[in-house]
């Protein structure tokens, strides 16, 4: 429902004339407002000690704010609110594990991808080994995510239950409301690593898609897009991109995951 509202808002907004250049506005305000997750470790979540939103997406957002030379202000978001926040001008950028899709490109612009992952599943042990087994299963997804859209289009025999966020979907799995949940593999690895009863569950041994995550930018803000792209390329060149990745997915973290994607691999 929220997704269709997002579309309606986007349709309205695109019919209005373009405003002044956003990069100028940001510099004038001295603040870059970035929509980030507050509930999706390790991309964006509320740090227990500092009580601030932190994570991989936040580190990238911080680098962009630094490049422009302004203060970073984070706007908490969830999967379904990302496009409305951008289109309504409540945020200048979205850095919230935002997967690039053609459908979304109609409403927002994207930077170069800075992260890559694929759609995977967590299920009770032994239940899900091949994609064919998805037919007839009840699968939990996050509202408004590419995983939900992909399953609805390609696996009509799967019963989908849409939740507000991943931890809620995982709670539903643990309570037996659904038999599997689907999200980016990178997020599921992190989720499973923290579960106290993780021996009961497993990551299904297949990946449905290869997806790329990028910074979302309001439509038509070409100067802002190229500034974000320059920042991302510099992060890769200086090794900071790798450092940021290792901070959240390195061998010493809760969710060790080898880095198989560099900024610039995909445009």
């Amino acid at each position: 429902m929220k997704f269709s509202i997002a579309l309606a808002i986007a349709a309205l907004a695109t019919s209005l004339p373009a405003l002044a250049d956003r990069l100028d506005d940001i510099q004038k305000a001295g603040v870059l407002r970035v929509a980030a997750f507050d509930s999706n470790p390790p991309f964006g979540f509320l740090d227990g000690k500092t009580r601030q939103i932190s994570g991989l997406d936040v580190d990238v957002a911080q680098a962009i704010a630094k490049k422009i030379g302004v203060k970073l202000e984070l706007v908490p978001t969830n999967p379904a609110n990302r496009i409305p926040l951008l289109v309504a001008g409540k945020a200048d950028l979205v850095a919230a594990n935002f997967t690039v899709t053609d459908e979304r490109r109609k409403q927002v612009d994207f930077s170069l991808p800075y992260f890559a992952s694929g759609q995977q599943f967590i299920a009770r042990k032994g239940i899900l080994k091949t994609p064919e087994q998805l037919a007839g299963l009840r699968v939990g997804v996050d509202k408004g995510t590419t995983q939900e859209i992909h399953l609805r289009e390609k696996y009509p025999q799967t019963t989908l239950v849409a939740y507000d966020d991943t931890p809620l979907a995982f709670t539903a799995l643990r309570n037996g409301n659904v038999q599997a949940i689907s999200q980016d593999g990178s997020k599921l690895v992190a989720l499973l690593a923290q579960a106290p009863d993780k021996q009961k569950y497993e990551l299904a041994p297949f990946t449905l898609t290869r997806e790329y995550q990028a910074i979302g930018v309001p439509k038509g803000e070409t100067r802002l897009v190229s500034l974000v792209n320059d920042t991302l390329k510099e992060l890769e060149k200086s090794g900071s991109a790798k450092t940021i990745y290792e901070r959240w997915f390195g061998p010493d973290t809760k969710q060790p995951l080898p880095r198989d994607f560099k900024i610039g691999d995909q445009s």
Partner: protein
Amino acid sequence: MAGCAMNTQLIADNIDYLLIGNWANGQPGGLALTLFLAVAAGSIASLLGLAGGIALTMGQPGLRRTLEAVIAVLRAIPVMMLIFWCYFLLPILLGIDVPGIATVIAALALISAAYLSQSVYAGIAAIGHGQWAAGQALGLGRWQTLRWVILPQALRVMLPSFINQWITLIKDTSLAYVVGVAELTFVATQVNNREQIYPLEIFGMIGLAYFIVCSTLAWLGSRLARRWQPV
């Protein structure tokens, strides 16, 4: 027992965040923000509701019909939709940027005022015609009769309706999460999503907090009602 110690620790670590949010860094939230939203929206709603109910009683037919139409529209919109649309649509349509907290207060105040207008109207109507006649017999005008004869009795009749509406409003502040306002339910979700595995403990505590706030208000209301009983 290890689990029990874990739970105590969990609550101890997060209680300040749940109560006042990140106030230390200038971002009040949690229960404190919930109470602020409720008091602000409740005060505005009560004043508007009183004015609306009086206008429904005393106004010209044209004014009454307009007001009835506005009330009907407001009562027909889910609170969450009103918040969502105000927050995301006003900037696009009118170019004005309303902060999340103001949007929530305005939406809750408007909808509660619509309900309260009807309560006030009904409360005034419940006072018999004889009272209006008595006022006139004393040489009072219509407005003076309303002020000195009708309202003192009507407000007493309306009090339970007001308490009802205020309690509903306290609970409806939880809908502020939809636009990212860090009230109690929102911060609890943040903590739950970091901890991942203690939803029962966290949301149990949140439920208890709402229960304490709402039942305190109900208790105060019933005490006030008793004090107001005519001798």
